[in-house]
Structures are given as C-alpha cells and as structure tokens.
C-alpha cells in the first residue's frame, strides 16, 4: 500500500470532529437541561457515617440524606452516627435532632454448648443455615442458637463475636442495630431492642416444664414466676414464654429473682457476660 497522507489523517480527523460535536451537545445540554439539586444533600451526606448499612430503612446514606433535607425524617433515625454528628446535622439543617434511643441486637437464647443438650453429631458445612437444613445440626433444642456464626459473618461492624460457649456476643458499643444479624439467623433468634429495656427473656422454646429443661438447662420452663413478681400486665405468659410489655408499667429486676433457670435476665450491657450474671446473683441475694 502506498504512503497516503489523506488516509492517515482522515481517521483521527473524523474522531476529533465527532468528539467536538458531542462535546458541544453535552455543554449545551448541561447549560439548559441542568437538574437543580439541593446542595445541602451533598453536605448532609458528608456528615453521615457513610456505611450504607440500611438500619434507617433507606437503601443507603444518600437516600437518607435526601429524606433528611426534605424534612421527612429526623437525624436520630440514623443509629450509626455519634450524637455529636447528629447534632451537627440538625444544626446544619436547622431541625430538631430528635430523640435517639440506642438500640441493639439481642439474642433470644442463652443455650450454648455447656447448657443445651446435643442429640447428634453434625458433620457438614460450617454455617448455621447449612446445619439447620440437616436435621437441625444435632442440637437437641430446635429453637435454640446453633452457634456456627452466620451472624458473626453477616455483621458489618464487627460487633458480634462468638464466645467460648458457642453463643454470639453482641458488643453493645459497636452494635448499630442495622438488623443484618436478624436476617442472617435461620432460627430468627435476633431481635432489635432498645438498650434501656433491661428485662429480657433469653429463651425461644415453646415447651413447658421438664420437657423444656430436658433440652437445655437455661430454658424457660414456663413456671410464670416472673409474671407473678412484676407489676400486673408487665410480664405475661404467651405460648409458654414470658413476654415483657415495656409500656405497661415500670420494669423491676425483681421479676428475675425467682426464675429457676435464669431464662429471664436483667441486662445492663452486653449479654452473656460474667458481670451481668454476677450482678444477677447479687440481686438474688438481696431478694
């Protein structure tokens, strides 16, 4: 092929021309079709934690800040941001920060390896849901924690650590109540509760009496003493388990004093901590 200047320069020339043309079109479009967006959305998003955890119920921090600017939600709906950060957002937007009640994930089971009976040996993939589909992973209690750490893996904030008893310990300082563990648990044992609701039932077994205790030493045997020892209507028995009604009256640790299996506990901080158990015992002595 012969040396041909026209061939060499025509291709770049066409590309350059096209580029110039589309550039002008875009510039004109930007000038005349611009979407006005509130600059405060960007600023608010900057102030949010940026974890996109979804605890507020929005698909991410951007969507949440859009709603904040629109005034549809209060800053305190974000459970991850520190109180100072919420205050600065409220100040920036000139709104009320709202009441932030610290919420945490609580496990409705205290039957670890030492407490709950095992009826078979499980061999298979290490995961709660995987064990649950194979005859419940050999755990005697079909409602209890399987202890294979699906929740620990699901936690974005490293707030869940499996303890030596095979139970997930939630660090209430790190927990943001995003609800990922609630979704991950195949036995629906996690629930999001306000930290200041101290009275908590750590059992999910609908069995009563000896049947319940035969499966697990810390199971609720549905004796109903906690219900009798608290103000009327605060603790009721439903489906062989105590249900705490926080609005019904003042909560008192007395409800836990006569529990024969420690299924109902008075929680000040983390679950399954020696401190809280000791405190429980000391309270018992006072009673």
């Amino acid at each position, binding site marked *: 092929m012969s040396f041909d200047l026209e061939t060499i320069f025509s291709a770049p020339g066409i590309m350059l021309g096209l580029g110039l043309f589309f550039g002008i079109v875009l510039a004109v479009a930007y000038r005349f079709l611009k979407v006005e967006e509130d600059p405060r959305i960007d600023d608010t998003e900057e102030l949010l934690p940026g974890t996109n955890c979804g605890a507020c119920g929005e698909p991410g921090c951007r969507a949440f800040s859009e709603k904040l600017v629109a005034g549809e939600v209060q800053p305190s709906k974000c459970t991850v941001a520190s109180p100072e950060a919420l205050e600065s957002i409220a100040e920036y937007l000139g709104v009320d920060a709202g009441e932030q009640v610290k919420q945490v994930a609580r496990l409705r089971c205290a039957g670890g390896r030492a407490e709950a009976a095992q009826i078979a040996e499980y061999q298979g993939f290490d995961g709660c849901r*995987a064990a649950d589909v*194979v005859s*419940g992973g*050999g755990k005697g209690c079909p409602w209890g924690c399987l202890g294979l750490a699906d929740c620990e893996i699901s936690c974005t904030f490293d707030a869940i650590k499996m303890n030596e008893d095979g139970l997930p310990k939630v660090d209430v300082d790190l927990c943001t109540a995003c609800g990922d563990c609630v979704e991950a648990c195949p036995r629906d044992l996690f629930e999001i509760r306000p930290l200041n609701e101290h009275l908590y039932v750590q059992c999910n077994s609908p*069995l009563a009496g000896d049947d319940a205790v035969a499966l697990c030493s810390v199971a609720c045997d549905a004796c109903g003493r906690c219900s009798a020892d608290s103000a009327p209507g605060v603790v009721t028995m439903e489906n062989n388990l105590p249900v705490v009604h926080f609005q019904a009256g003042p909560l008192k640790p007395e409800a836990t004093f006569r529990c024969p299996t420690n299924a109902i506990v008075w929680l000040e901080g983390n679950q399954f901590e020696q401190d809280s158990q000791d405190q429980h015992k000391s309270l018992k002595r006072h009673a």
Partner: protein
Amino acid sequence: MMKALRLPGRALGGFDHGVHPPHHKERTEDLPIQRLPFGSRFVMPLGQHIGAPSVPVVKAGDAVRRGQLIAGPGGFVSVALHSPVTGKVLDVGPHRYSDGTFREAIAIEADPYDSQEFEGAPIDWESLSLEAFIGEVQKAGIVGMGGAAFPCHVKYSLPEGTRIRCLLINGAECEPYLTTDHRLMVERPEALLHGAEIVRSKLGAEEIVIGVEKNKPDAIEMLQRSIGPGQPVRVVPLEVKYPQGAEKMLIKSIFGVEVPAGKLPRDVQIAVNNVGTIVAIADYFQKGMPLIERVVTVSGPGVAYPANLLAPLGTPIRDLLRFAGGLKEETRQVVMGGPMMGASIADLDAPILKGSSGILALTANETGRPEERPCIRCGRCVEACPYFLNPARFARLARARLYEEMAEKYNVMDCVECGCCTYSCPSGIPIVQHIRTAKDYLRSMTRKEK
C-alpha cells in the same frame, strides 16, 4: 398446551446425565415383606405430607379404633389422618419429628388386649364420579409414598381442559438399598394392577405404563404374568441409573418427552404414581383400609438383619431397628429414605411417616465425609446433573452467601436435590447441602415478605 402425547412402542434412550451408584439391594430384595408387631406408643404428626397440616378431630383420652379418622384435611392440599392402632389418645401436642424439630402430633397408646384387626368394607368405586373419587382419595389420607408425600388427590384434580392419556406407575426405585416397591410388585401384583385399573378408569386414561428398572427381573416377570386379558398395561424395563425414578426422568426415559421446568407431568398428559401409592389406593377401595401402614426397608451395614417391614405409621424408628436386630456398634448415621436423597435422623424415637420408604443404618464406610478440597472445575457435577443445572456454580455462590443470584440467574429452585452432584464430586464438596441452604434462605425471605 403441549402437543398430543407421543406414545411410542420404540425403545428410547433413557435420560441424559445421572450417576450409577452401587445399588446394594441384595440385602433385602429377596426377603418377603414381614409385618412388624404392634408397639405400645404411636405418634402421628399432623403435618407429615406436603401442604396444610391436618386438623385433629380427637382429644386426649379418646378411645380410637384402628383406621378411625383422627384428623381431617386442613385444606385442599392436605389429607386426612387415621389411627394406626386401636387404643387411647394420649395427647395432642408437640412431638419430636425425624428432623429434630417438634411438630404438632397425635400420640396414641395401643390397647395391649386388642387383636388390632382392621374392620372395613370395600368401596364401590365403579359408581363413583371423578370428584367423588378424588374426595375418597383425600379422605383415605393417601399421599405419594415414594418419599415426597405429596397429596395424591391433588394430582388427580385436573384443571379445565387438561386430560390424562397415560397413567405411569413408578416402579423404578432407583435409590440404593430400598426394596419396598420391588417387594410390593413381586408379592402384590394383583393389588397393584387393580389399583392402577381404578385410577386409570377414573381419570379416563388410555393406558397404564409401569416403569421398572432392569435390576428387578422378578418384578417385571411377575407383573407381566399378572396382567389380565385385555388390560391396557405395558411393563417397561428401564436402564439402571440414578435418578431413574424422578418423575421427569421417568417420563423422558419412557416417552422421550421432556417436561419443561416449572411444568407438571399432567401438562404432557401423564399422571405419575408410585407403586406404593397405587397399592394403598387398591387397599382402600378393596378393603376400606385408609393409609395406616406402609412397607419400610430397614437395611444398611449397620443393622444385623435387614428386612422389608409392613409397619404401622407412627411407630418409633427405634422399634423397626430393634426388630432388625438393633444397631451395630459401628453405626454412625441413621437415614430416613434412601442414601441419595434421604435425611439423617436426629432422634430415633421419631415416628415412621407416610413418606418413609426406608430406614438405613450406615457406618463410617458410607458416611465418612471426604476431606473437603477446593473445586477443581472438573465439571463432573455438571455432567451428572439430570436437570442440566450448574452445581459447581451453586456451591461457589452459596459459599459466598449470594443466594439471590443463585435463584435469579441460575435457577436453583429447579434443583430437586437428587444428590448426583455431591456423589460425583471428587473434591468432597457438600454441594446439595449448599443448595438446600440457599433454598431455605430464599424460602424464608419469601415468607418474611408476605
């Protein structure tokens, strides 16, 4: 609507893919069915079939007779339950199920002084309309006895414009160890053919086809010999291959027709029933006896005396194992169903159910889980999958917990958990367990959305 069904006389090539596990049927295939003596305590779970649980009609303390209705159907996709013994209802409450969970069940204590004889009268099936027949089948508590326990009458309730041209009886029994259908075909061919005739005439089908794997030559011979003159029955010997007894594979093998994913056999004008189911239907219409007992193969290297037992439903698994000589020292696992699809049992006191085809005691030899190694992309699972799915991809996605992607892109819900992939995997990856985990997650998500 599918085109008219081809009913070829020519030999077809069976189905593609699948595996050839050793069948181990020699332990029980020549042993006649024995009746298991009645025990003392029986537990009938209300939800032992697919669909809505039955609704109890008895209460603690009630005296019941063998075959008496104890729970009515809880909906259309549900069946009745009958007392397997004469005795007294102990309680209606949560009892341990074979998978370790507690389910609502009726516990019955047998009367030790009763002869446990069944009293019933034959039912005149010839005068029944199709609707009445379907109602009778539901009332008899009959479900698919191959293992899935799907209410039988639902299969017969055809939507407007559908018709059945062929009643296909599944005698493949492709699961290793199990010989319940085999023994029924050898010992009760008349009952099978009579039951088949009842269903065929009620559904208006033209033909009865019985598919039997070639490793049961005595069953094929017995059936062929028992066919009455003029009965439109064809016995088709099938290649010995797992999962030959999966209904879609069976249809493919015999008719060369593929039932599309998400469709049912009735969409290709075929009704498929297990041998045990048809015999149960025959028993109901001939003797008036509802589904209160079934044949269970007790086998495996972990039992001393393997047997085919006619056991009342609700009998504790422990009683069957005891009758078979008890568990040997080296038993590691007890499985309900076959070794490929069956589930390991969490509690030996759990009862025999309508869908329990076998109780297998396996030793470390059979259950020893190979050390799990990384997937080497050899593709053996893909080659084995009779549903043309990609099990290797499922295992990888499930490990990464990308369950939604498995459903949306790779049709994990089409998997029937036949176990071919896990069986063929040289790296010892528990693929089916991963798939079941994913399906469990997906189902729980749909439940939560509701």
